[in-house]
């Protein structure tokens, strides 16, 4: 008997696969067949645990079985099992077997591999065949166990179900994190295929019994959802505009120049949203549902201007038909609801105005917070040398010329850093550097003071000219103020550049000083201008926006009184001297173009902003074409017939002026924010402007500019730009907020005409459109007694969060010290 069993061992392995499916069930069914297939049974002797019914007859077999089991650490033992109750044991066997294999295979490389990974980590090129056999057997075992459970009517126990589910989840997690493992593709592929097979098989098996269909459906929906997510990610990546262009610029010029274009693209995104808001919620409803052109006096070109209303010159100046259209504030009617939708136009106008400001604040602060996170916080300065070493290479550089520049700059920066480290231990040179820097700042202050005085002087002079009558003077005297301010704006930054060479800062820091000084220059000029004009109000300064607004407004106040008086007289004249006592008298039909108009300061302000934006755009484009393109053409073609080498000496090709362009972008956006309440068309114009700017500047950079000599990283500058943007945003929204809260709107134009203050539209809406209790709640909530404690609470929470972050930093330092001391102890 024993020998029989032993002999059968050899054939058992081969026959197993044939016999597996046909089931022990049949063998178990009748005692006769059991006895009859004693040999057959012995082949599967390992599997039969439930042989208690056989009693002692099988005692002998059991002995042999155990012998076989002992020997069966090899292939047959675990693979021959078919019973579900054995599946766990088999998997344990399988695991231990594979662990053994893995220990042989390990070449001692990677750390941190969990048990699962070990189990799954097979090298197909080494053990291909064996794995295939194993896999096949595992599959058959599973299917065998499945069919077994069906035929046997033995349910999978709850524990096993839970364990299987757990394993399936683990496999799924493995699949999701596979791309993050630093393995070769071959290995990842094999692991992926194996894990996917496992998941597929068992997900099918787990669905057996109760709720199988639902489970399978759920699994299918999950797969579809994952596929959809992946496709959506692909689509989103393909949608990012200008990515290729920017990458190309980055490879030639490094990331500092590219950061300007990324900033430009981000601005474009913001302006698109602002455009969507103003276009969709203000301009389109009025155009579709409001009263058409010509039905109201405010919507019609006055008779006097009709002749020139369609001229190109008038339209370019945004007068004529452009002025009396949805593009400007004055066109909108103050009806509470318009159209069949009962669209509340004044409310919408107000909310869009406030919403654009709120959205801009939110997005700028959010981007700043994100950048601050990326910065990593913590001890910023302590890794200078390591960072220079490990992270200074810009992998986006693909151009050898830029690479050479980068090499040179890295070498220089290493040497500088070494020298500075040594210098910091010496004392003398610090004083010289400090002295030079103080001198440089002094010179910069002198320049600022000088430009302020010059503006003051020029403005006083032009007032004198105005008093004497402008016709007596030539072009220069008439435009003196404009010209002087433009010239100052052009030459002072260059002067600052020269001054900064005294200071000898790292280029990133020098850039910041430069930006700060130019900013101070513009602000200083503005204030000097306002102060100089305090006495006189009549000057039209084209590009000093906030003052222009006040000027126009104050002028209009006077005008309004006069016009109102005139209008009553005119109405009286219509009725031939009799002023109707009651309003039931039929109104006389008058063409709207003939009605005398009240002044509309909001529209005028809007027009000023639009003209400003357009002229700013033109100036920028012309500067690029002349300053960069013509210069490059000149240097390239005249080099052959010139005495000195134009390309290396003066003037050579221009470098891309990052600071100038960034400032231009920021100031431009400030103008948009200030003006979009009065001219809803401004965001649209800006979107168009940014779009063309991107293409023009990308072309100009690639065609006419050369990479800078000192190529530096721009990442930390991003928050600096954001901080400036935030400051400008704050400054720009002040005038709009002030007008909404304190100044009465024009009586004859715009959606708020007839109200004493613009924000009254809110209280009006609360009265009419909301239930009465809502108004009460709102009244309570806007009580200062509630708002002040709320503000106090916010200030306290800021303080608390600040304190927490400080304590985290300190804890970090403590841990680091501990690490060091632990090591030195060892």
């Amino acid at each position, binding site marked *: 008997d024993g020998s029989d069993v032993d002999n059968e061992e050899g054939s058992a392995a081969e026959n197993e696969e044939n016999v597996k499916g046909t089931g022990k069930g049949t063998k178990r069914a009748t005692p006769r067949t059991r006895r009859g297939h004693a040999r057959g049974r012995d082949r599967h002797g390992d599997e039969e645990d439930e042989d208690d019914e056989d009693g002692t007859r099988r005692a002998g077999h059991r002995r042999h079985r155990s012998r076989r089991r002992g020997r069966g650490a090899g292939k047959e033992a675990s693979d021959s099992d078919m019973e579900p109750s054995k599946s766990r044991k088999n998997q344990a066997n399988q695991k231990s077997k594979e662990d053994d294999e893995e220990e042989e295979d390990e070449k001692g490389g990677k750390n941190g591999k969990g048990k699962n990974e070990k189990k799954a980590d097979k090298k197909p090129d080494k053990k291909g065949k064996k794995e295939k056999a194993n896999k096949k057997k595992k599959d058959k075992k599973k299917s065998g166990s499945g069919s077994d459970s069906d035929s046997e009517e033995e349910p999978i126990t709850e524990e096993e179900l839970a364990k299987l589910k757990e394993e399936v989840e683990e496999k799924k997690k493995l699949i999701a994190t596979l791309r993050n493992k630093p393995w070769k593709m071959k290995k990842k592929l094999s692991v992926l295929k194996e894990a996917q097979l496992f998941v597929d098989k068992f997900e099918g098996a787990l669905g057996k019994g109760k709720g199988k269909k639902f489970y399978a459906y759920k699994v299918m929906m999950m797969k579809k959802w994952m596929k959809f997510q992946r496709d959506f990610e692909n689509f989103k990546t*393909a949608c990012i505009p200008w990515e290729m262009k920017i990458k190309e610029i980055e490879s030639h010029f490094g990331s500092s120049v590219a950061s300007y274009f990324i900033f430009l693209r981000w601005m474009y995104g913001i302006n698109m949203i602002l455009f969507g808001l103003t276009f969709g919620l203000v301009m389109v409803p009025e155009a579709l549902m409001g009263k058409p052109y010509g039905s109201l006096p405010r919507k019609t070109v006055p008779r006097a201007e009709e002749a020139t209303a369609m001229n190109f010159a008038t339209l370019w100046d945004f007068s004529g038909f452009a002025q009396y259209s949805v593009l400007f504030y004055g066109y909108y009617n103050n009806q509470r609801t318009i159209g069949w939708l009962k669209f509340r136009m004044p409310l919408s106008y107000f909310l869009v105005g406030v919403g654009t400001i709120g959205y801009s604040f939110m997005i700028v602060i959010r981007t700043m917070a994100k950048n601050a996170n990326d910065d990593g916080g913590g001890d910023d300065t302590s890794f200078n040398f390591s960072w220079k070493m490990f992270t200074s290479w810009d992998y986006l550089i693909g151009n*050898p010329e830029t690479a050479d520049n980068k090499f040179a700059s890295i070498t220089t920066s290493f040497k500088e850093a070494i020298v500075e480290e040594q210098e910091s231990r010496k004392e003398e040179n610090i004083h010289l550097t400090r002295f030079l820097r103080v001198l440089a700042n002094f010179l910069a202050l002198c320049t600022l003071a000088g430009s302020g005085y010059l503006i003051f002087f020029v403005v006083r002079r032009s007032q004198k000219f105005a008093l004497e009558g402008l016709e007596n003077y030539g072009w220069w005297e008439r435009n003196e103020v404009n010209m002087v301010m433009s010239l100052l704006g052009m030459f002072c930054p260059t002067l600052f550049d020269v001054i900064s060479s005294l200071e000898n800062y790292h280029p990133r820091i020098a850039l910041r000083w430069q930006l700060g000084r130019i900013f101070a220059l513009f602000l200083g000029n503005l204030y000097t201008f306002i102060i100089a004009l305090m006495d006189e109000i009549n000057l039209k300064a084209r590009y000093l926006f906030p003052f222009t607004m006040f000027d126009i407004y104050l002028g209009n106040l006077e005008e309004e009184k006069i016009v109102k008086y005139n209008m009553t007289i005119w109405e009286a004249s219509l009725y031939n001297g009799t002023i109707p006592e009651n309003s039931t008298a039929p109104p006389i039909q008058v063409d709207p173009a003939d009605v005398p108009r009240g002044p509309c300061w909001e529209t005028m302000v809007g027009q000023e902003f639009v003209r400003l934006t357009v002229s700013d755009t033109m100036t920028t484009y012309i500067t690029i074409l002349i300053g960069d393109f013509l210069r490059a053409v000149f240097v390239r073609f005249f080099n052959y017939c010139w005495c000195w080498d134009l390309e290396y000496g003066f003037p050579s090709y221009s470098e891309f002026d990052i600071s100038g362009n960034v400032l231009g972008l920021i100031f431009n956006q400030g103008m948009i924010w200030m003006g979009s309440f009065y001219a809803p068309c401004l965001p649209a114009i800006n979107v168009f402007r940014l779009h063309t700017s991107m293409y023009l500047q990308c072309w100009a950079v690639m065609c006419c500019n050369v990479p800078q000599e000192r190529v530096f990283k721009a990442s930390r500058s991003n928050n600096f730009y954001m901080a400036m943007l935030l400051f400008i945003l704050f400054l720009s929204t002040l005038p709009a907020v002030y007008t909404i809260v304190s100044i009465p709107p024009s009586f004859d134009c715009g959606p708020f005409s007839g109200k004493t203050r613009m924000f009254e539209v809110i209280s009006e809406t609360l009265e009419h459109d909301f239930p009465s209790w809502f108004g009460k709640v709102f009244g309570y909530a806007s009580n200062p007694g509630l708002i002040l404690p709320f503000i106090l609470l916010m200030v306290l929470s800021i303080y608390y969060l600040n304190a927490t972050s400080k304590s985290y930093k300190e804890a970090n330092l403590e841990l680091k010290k501990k690490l060091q001391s632990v090591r030195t102890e060892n």
Partner: protein
Amino acid sequence: RAPGSGAMGGSASLIPRETLGEYQELTFLSKQEILLAYKRFSELLPKEERENACSARVPKSHILTLPELRANPFQHRICRVFSTSETGDDSMSFEDFLDMLSVFSDSATFDIKSHYAFRIFDFDEDGILDRKDLEQLVNCLTGQGEESWLSSAEMEQLIENILEESDIDKDGTINLSEFQHVVSRSPDFARCSGLQG
């Protein structure tokens, strides 16, 4: 440079859809990027082998003509680290190429980037960055010519400073976790360790 998706129509049929899905699963690249990579890879092969690009190997000299690697001081190390060539000639198959692009792409995580950066910087492949590795690293960064290299005194000083900053357990070498700690604090790492297209 390779043009956009218009030219990719043909190559889409050369990678079977299932394999494409698997590559998407296993790398940080999107479908368009994988197809573009396939196109560029097959352009590096001689005409006869282009049909079979998935299983061909491109010799190192051809890989180094790619614009991303041409100006890169670590070009040889990159080829060595990503190549699965058994003969040690640093030739790359398409899957190695995908691996490389995946690690350098914008969406790769910090973990995998820093892991591979460490391996690239480890010139002698002993699993740690010791003095010799750091010296070679500095020499790579300062340009190809000998005249631009730092003097030995400067080199000494520089390496001293670096070890002082980064070597937390003071054993004279930088291991993977110390490297990751230092680099995770740098705002430039994620930005600069990406390749185009």
